[in-house]
């Protein structure tokens, strides 16, 4: 019956087109399996869709989506942890399976694999802060908003993460970088 009622949804397709790839990559880095990243990215955008009317015209859409995705992942990680605590053996099997899988073989170089492992082994907040900063180059201000902490804490999380990764790589030869002055 007649034209449709406009509910300010124009533009959401554009948001999906612009940001889905990056949000999916972010969640793919965080999740254990591709199928999880798929589910989580859907959850992120469906939540965003529902909340779109609270988005002000001058809002930083990218930061907003990262915050939602981070939240979605944290909830997911929480329930995963509970589930895994109940089925601990499953966790071990899964982990081995992942690392021996074709995905791991495809990673060029042992160091990269080790680094990835080190990142995955980080405490959640450090891992999130590190990924947001080093993989997606977000500002500490934005990272703080995503993690419900101050920019300073976000920065501290990243530094702790770097320290741990470095420790994990102790004893492994790293590719040379240009010498320092």
């Amino acid at each position, binding site marked *: *019956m007649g034209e449709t009622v406009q509910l*300010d949804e124009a533009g959401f397709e554009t948001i999906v087109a612009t940001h889905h790839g990056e949000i*999916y990559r972010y969640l*793919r880095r965080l999740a254990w399996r591709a199928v999880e990243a798929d589910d989580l990215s859907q959850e992120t955008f469906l939540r965003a869709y529902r909340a779109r009317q609270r988005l002000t015209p001058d809002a930083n859409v990218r930061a907003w989506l990262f915050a939602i995705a981070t939240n979605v992942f944290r909830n997911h990680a929480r329930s995963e942890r509970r589930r895994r605590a109940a089925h601990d053996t499953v966790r071990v099997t899964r982990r081995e399976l992942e690392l021996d899988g074709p995905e791991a073989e495809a990673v060029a170089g042992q160091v990269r694999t080790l680094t990835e492992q080190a990142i995955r082994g980080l405490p959640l907040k450090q891992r999130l802060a590190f990924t947001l900063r080093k993989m997606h180059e977000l500002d500490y201000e934005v990272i703080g908003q995503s993690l419900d902490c101050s920019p300073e804490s976000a920065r501290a999380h990243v530094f702790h993460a770097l320290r741990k990764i470095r420790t994990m790589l102790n004893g492994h030869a*790293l590719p040379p*970088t240009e010498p320092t002055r």
Partner: protein
Amino acid sequence: MSKPQKPPTCVQIEPDLIAAATGEATGEADARVQTHVATCRSCRDDFTRYRAVDAVVGTLRGETPAAADADAARARLVARLADLKTRLVSYKVFPSPLGPILIAASEHGVALVEYLRGAAADSRLFRMGDVDTQEGGGALERLHGELLDYLAGRRTRLEWPLDLRFARSDFERAVLQATAAVPYGAVSSYTGIAGDIGKPSAVRAVAQALRHNPVPIVVPCHRIVGIDGDLVGYAGDRIGLKERLLAVEGVPTVHERARIAREAMYHYDPNPDRQYCVPTCGSIFTRPLGQVRLFASRELAETTGLSPCVDCRPDLQPVLHGGPEMAPKPPDARRGRA
């Protein structure tokens, strides 16, 4: 965790050193670090190590998952969004002269207008299956404004696209469509609507369908009365609301008897010349409201394409509202009408 016996200066500069090595330091901190590592071998090694770590991390940053995976994920998202959009209904509760009213709309149109008796959570909306609800939405505010205008008599039509998803059958949808065609200021009957949809014997079913009208006011079920002019029912037991809505349109009612003041309205009994009459024309007043449609004013009758009867000449002898033998005016009739 940190190594034992590290000199205090080295411990102190470590955060800056990590920052400088991973491209996060300010110029000042960077200079401090460079000065320090020039003389401290252990920290120089640390610095080099962190730079190497940062370089490895950099290679990870460049890695992207298989494009096919990302594309498939996006395609699934687009499909789910489309599904969500069809199920998503936005709602908001607004104040009105008739009490709090909940308005709900989907992307297709207005799906629910409900007089609330209690909390919004008790709305019909939340008892419907296959619906995703969401509070608020810019368009709802506009609808509310138009509704207030309508209730104040400043507007005679609510030209809202409708989404009749909450009607329970095609029959109900047909009843609602036929009811929507009853113009402002006119009154028809359940029998009349049954006839309009080609099911003249389904009078009770028509009444039931209108009892479940998901969009009252917009689909004006208040313009539908019993065959003898009784108001019959509205929004459960809220006949008063029906009277008020009719009063807004200038339709006179006999408040004490909860019925239309038919004697104060123009009558139209379908005829080839499409002529409308005063109630005293022939036997028209005694005919049941099955076929006869009533109009509050000549203007309203004539805007639907009718012309004055050449026998009773309603144009020369208009029905007198409020005359001695006429029904008493409803509580706040004519409010806001020109």
